[in-house]
């Protein structure tokens, strides 16, 4: 599901007022003051459960009812999930899965406000927010619960994104792809030489020059769509790769200062801001489809609509190289297990089911209004026509195959996971605010330095967001 899409911001996980919850359960209205005092006391005392990675609580009997919290985003994916859950229930009688959808834009706030006990057994989480969930005790390691074969079949980028300290926490049906879609006709008319693969990518300067050429040829005066109308997680997903492409990192050694605001990033930001005159505001979300712009910088989820509108005129290209090679994003919604509820074994059966080839293919293929997401299993990926070497989206598969993993972003690797830390929501929030300010004309050095300082202060306040265990 989920196409990773612009989720609401920051998933902070819940009030680990797990302890407090039981105190105020079933409190009569009259004794509210008493329960409030209890809440105070508990807050002051140990506070909450969690804070440690969820101990592998007893996985249960492997039978019974499990509750599944799914992200309600695109109607095609919703239907796919509904069908899969129904098929799972029909195929065996040990485990009954009860499905519950939460609208995508509500998901983060709802999750923040739910304690582990009340959360579903199986939950759908956006990759980079996984560590925050782990820290709040809402996700547990799935090694040993999910079958080895399933794990082995997951593509490397997913394993990289969803592993912490050697333990795997989630299993995915999809990974994401990010690139620049192009309108061949418009590109040709402006005489642009565009990349055909990962070997001849644009440099940032070439890209800027080409934008000017395209804008000159287009009556709208614009050349590029950056999905400015998307909110939430999009700016971070879409533009954080530029930081790595410029040769820097977001945080190193627990500090953002000196990295997020390094000279390379500032230079890249300036270049990015210089594109503004050529960028369409895209309020109607159809600048590319209606031909107002020749290029659209966005992820895999628009592929069905774009290919329907442009047909063979559509081309998919890598992002420009800001000095350290072309870099792109990765990571998407995946399925994890809330082991604190004690139904790990039963939940794992559903995960195994979700991750089998039939379902993965179903989910991502056009058959069910799939959204063009990259299948997250080796076998399904191998069979996919979209992602085959001759397929239109092969680039995304290639990029993910060359993931930088959790190591440093070298010149050759392409897909970079977003920073893997429980403090990720703050990074995302502060980065996207700064990035948009820069785009709107603010001084890049000042904005990036400020973002770095805000991030560092927050990390300091929270003890570096250490994950124990």
């Amino acid at each position, binding site marked *: 599901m989920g196409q990773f899409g612009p989720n609401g911001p920051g998933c902070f996980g819940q009030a680990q007022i797990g302890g*407090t919850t039981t105190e105020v359960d079933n409190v009569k209205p009259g004794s509210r003051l008493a329960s409030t005092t209890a809440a105070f006391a508990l807050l002051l005392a140990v506070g909450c459960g969690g804070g440690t990675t969820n101990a592998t609580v007893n996985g249960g009997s492997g039978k019974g009812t499990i509750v599944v919290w799914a992200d309600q*985003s695109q109607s095609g994916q919703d239907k796919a999930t509904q069908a899969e859950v129904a098929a799972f229930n029909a195929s065996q009688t040990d485990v009954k899965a009860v499905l519950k*959808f939460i609208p995508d*834009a509500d998901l983060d706030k709802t999750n923040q406000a739910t304690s582990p006990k009340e959360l579903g057994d199986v939950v759908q989480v956006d990759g980079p927010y996984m560590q925050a969930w782990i820290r709040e005790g809402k996700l547990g390691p799935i090694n040993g619960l999910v079958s080895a074969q399933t794990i082995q079949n997951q593509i490397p980028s997913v394993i990289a994104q969803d592993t912490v300290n050697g333990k795997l926490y989630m299993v995915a049906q999809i990974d994401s792809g990010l690139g620049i879609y192009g309108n061949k006709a418009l590109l040709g008319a402006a005489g642009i030489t565009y990349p055909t693969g990962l070997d001849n990518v644009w440099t940032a300067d070439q890209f800027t020059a080409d934008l000017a050429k395209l804008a000159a040829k287009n009556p709208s005066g614009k050349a590029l769509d950056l*999905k400015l109308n998307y*909110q*939430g997680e999009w700016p971070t997903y879409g533009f954080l790769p530029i930081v790595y492409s410029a040769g820097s990192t977001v945080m190193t050694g627990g500090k953002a200062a000196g990295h997020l605001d390094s000279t390379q990033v500032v230079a890249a930001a300036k270049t990015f801001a210089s594109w503004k005159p050529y960028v369409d505001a895209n309020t109607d*979300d159809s600048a590319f489809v209606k031909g107002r712009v020749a290029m659209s910088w966005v992820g895999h989820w628009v592929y069905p609509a774009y290919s329907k509108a442009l047909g063979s005129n559509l081309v998919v290209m890598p992002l420009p190289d800001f000095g350290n090679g072309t870099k792109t994003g990765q990571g998407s919604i995946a399925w994890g297990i809330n082991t604190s509820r004690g139904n790990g074994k039963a939940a794992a059966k559903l995960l195994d089911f979700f991750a089998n080839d039939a379902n993965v293919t179903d989910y991502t293929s056009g058959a069910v209004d799939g959204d063009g997401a990259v299948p997250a299993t080796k076998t399904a990926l191998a069979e996919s026509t979209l992602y085959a070497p001759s397929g239109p989206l092969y680039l995304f598969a290639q990029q993910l195959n060359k993931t930088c993993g959790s190591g440093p972003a070298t010149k050759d690797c392409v897909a970079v996971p977003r920073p893997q830390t429980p403090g990720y929501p703050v990074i995302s929030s502060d980065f996207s605010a700064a990035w948009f300010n820069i785009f709107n004309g603010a001084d890049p050095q000042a904005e990036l330095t400020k973002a770095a300082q805000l991030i560092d202060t927050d990390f300091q306040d929270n003890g570096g967001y250490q994950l124990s265990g």
Partner: protein
Amino acid sequence: MSNATINGRRALTLSTRARDRVQVGRLGPSRLRIALSYAVLVPVTILFVSPIIYMFIASFKPNNEVLSGFAVFSPQDLSLNNYLSIFSRFSGPDTGTFTGFLTTSLLVSSVTVVGGLAVNSIAAYALARLRWPGRNLLLLGVIALVIVPFEAIAVPLFYMLDGLRNTYLVQFLPFIASPFSIYLFYSFFAGLPKSLEEAARVDGAGAWRTFFSIMLPNAKPAFATVAILQFMSSWSSFLWPVMVIDDPTVRPLPLAISVYVGTPPYGWGNIMAFGVMMVLPMLVVFLIFQRWFIRSVVASGVKG
């Protein structure tokens, strides 16, 4: 005024200009003035209401035609698709159903309003018209609380009420007593002439009797206003339910609209259709109360 004589008696007569004006008052404005008034009022009103017209029309148009300048007003491509898709999108207990959302919202808002009218009006009456120790202190407290925005207390309130997740109770209980409603009632009651109650009090009626027999009948505009405002506030409430509700079967309407707002492709047509459906009940409530409101205001000639 001139002192002319009519029939030998001295009489005060009006000057010509004044006479004309009084004549105007007696017979009503001239036809020209009526026409002018309409000539101004009608276009101004239409212009004012045009965003609402836009919303209604856009709700019947395909998503990609909503943002197309004046073209959206053309009569082509009108369809109920946006509305139908809302029903098909929300079709079962896993997603919640539109009627389920509607029922939840109606239930929660109605209880909030009925409870609120009762609780807030009597408190305001006691503050406005009765004398008792501590009154001024409490009044000050209420006014101070009017300033506290909900966003300020959302998280602490959430910590307090976490045990009541996924119930109807948690959606209406915290909002029945409302500082703003009390203040509205208080201003209204305080502005009523004292003479209204004096007769009853002299006759020995207690505070409750006075409230029901004198205050209540004269306070219809206040009740109507508070009802409308509290209903609206409850109906459109989003931040609170998002924190305390995850179960689709007790989910209120505003949470469901997020499905169209958070994820691309943005269905502007869908959003407008959802908006129309959300606002219709409020319009109905308003239409019911406003006739009551306006009529009783004119009848009683009460100060606001």
